[in-house]
């Protein structure tokens, strides 16, 4: 009898949980064949020597995009495409030494004046441009009309906040966008 009561209790709360739906925002693995053909072709033309590519679909604020993630020349790359397969941007992980010194100084200045303490966790170089210019850059090392931004993930402490942040800086080191990174609950790892 005790077991039945416990089960019924569990079941009733479970139904309550199912009935509340919220907006879906997600990313998931897709097969290579599910990626737009233009995207696959562009990737083959731009990066000829890489090995394994993982494809993902991302849905954010009802906007869909496709991402390809792979390793190339020892660095982690992530290439974003729209659903038609047109490249949106190319991002890859770099170290702070890869940022030009002048730019680095401006970024450090921003972080030092806006945060009591900060620690950089990850830096990604974001490259924007037309599909042809981006392809020529990676394929032939040709510098076309390409915009470079730096996406920096850091732990920053202010008087009120102690959080993880993501700052997007332009090639001169000026801040374009700052957002707090939502980490998701950790209580299933804590308790």
């Amino acid at each position, binding site marked *: 009898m*005790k*077991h*039945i009561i*416990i*089960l019924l209790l*569990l079941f009733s*709360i*479970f139904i309550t*949980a*199912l009935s*509340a*739906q*919220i907006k*879906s*925002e*997600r*990313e*998931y*693995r897709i097969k290579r064949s599910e990626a737009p053909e233009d995207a696959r072709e562009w990737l083959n033309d731009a990066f000829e020597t890489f090995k394994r590519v993982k494809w*993902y679909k991302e849905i954010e604020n009802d906007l869909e995009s496709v991402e390809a993630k792979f390793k190339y020349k020892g660095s982690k790359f992530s290439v974003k495409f729209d659903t038609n397969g047109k490249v949106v941007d190319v991002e890859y992980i770099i170290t702070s030494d890869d940022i030009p010194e002048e730019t680095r100084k401006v970024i450090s200045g921003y972080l030092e004046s806006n945060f009591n303490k900060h620690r950089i966790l990850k830096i990604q170089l974001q490259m924007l441009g037309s599909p042809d210019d981006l392809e020529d850059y990676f394929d032939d090392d040709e510098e076309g009309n390409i915009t470079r931004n730096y996406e920096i993930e850091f*732990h920053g*402490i202010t008087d009120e*906040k*102690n*959080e*993880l942040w993501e700052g997007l800086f332009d090639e001169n080191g000026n801040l374009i966008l700052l957002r707090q990174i939502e*980490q*998701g*609950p*950790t*209580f*299933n*790892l*804590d*308790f």
Partner: protein
Amino acid sequence: MTKRLFLIILLLTIVHIITGNRIYSLNRGLSPEISLNYKLNEKYSLNGKVESFHFYQPADETGLWEDFSLDGVDFQFFVNRRINPFQSAALGYQYSYDPSGVGSNRIIQQYSFVTRPGVVRFGHRLRSDQTFHPEDPPRLRFRYRFSAEFPLQGEVIDPREFYMVASDELIYAIQDSQSSYENRLVASLGYMLPNKNHRLQVGFDYRTRLRDSELSETLWFKMAWLVRLN
């Protein structure tokens, strides 16, 4: 395909262990759990958990329900303080209901930190607790748990997606100057419901305990429902 195969094997194992023939002598049973989390502000949160343990002792000529006997129910309550995005400290209290005797009280102290170098989230937990039972001397325990959580679809856990959580915990206990050692190996398959504040986890909690040079083993089939209230 690999994932589907993995799920089928997991399910078959569950069915086999819960209802199948006894191959080896091992205490086993069911343990449902509800965990509720409530965020008070940026720094503090509350966590409440109810967990019951039902031993499975199959007897001939009885129904399935009679094969399960209630071993105990734990009621846990924690106040958690976030130190920074990675670390937190918590103080807790547990009341354990014992259907065959007198319940016990426990106070718990813990420090935990989480890292996420890539797709996998790693959790470390250091815990100490003191249990007070009216008929026994106090029992002190020191524990360390390492856990890993990773999505099975994509790089983060999203609504309607499966994930895995695995952990191993080492426990040293001392009671009346007698030591005992325990290891808890847990592996669970989780699912995030369409409402991302709700997660379901099913898995195994395999406990080995060494006490008075006697080794005992218990396998719990765990069903957990984790709820974030806000």
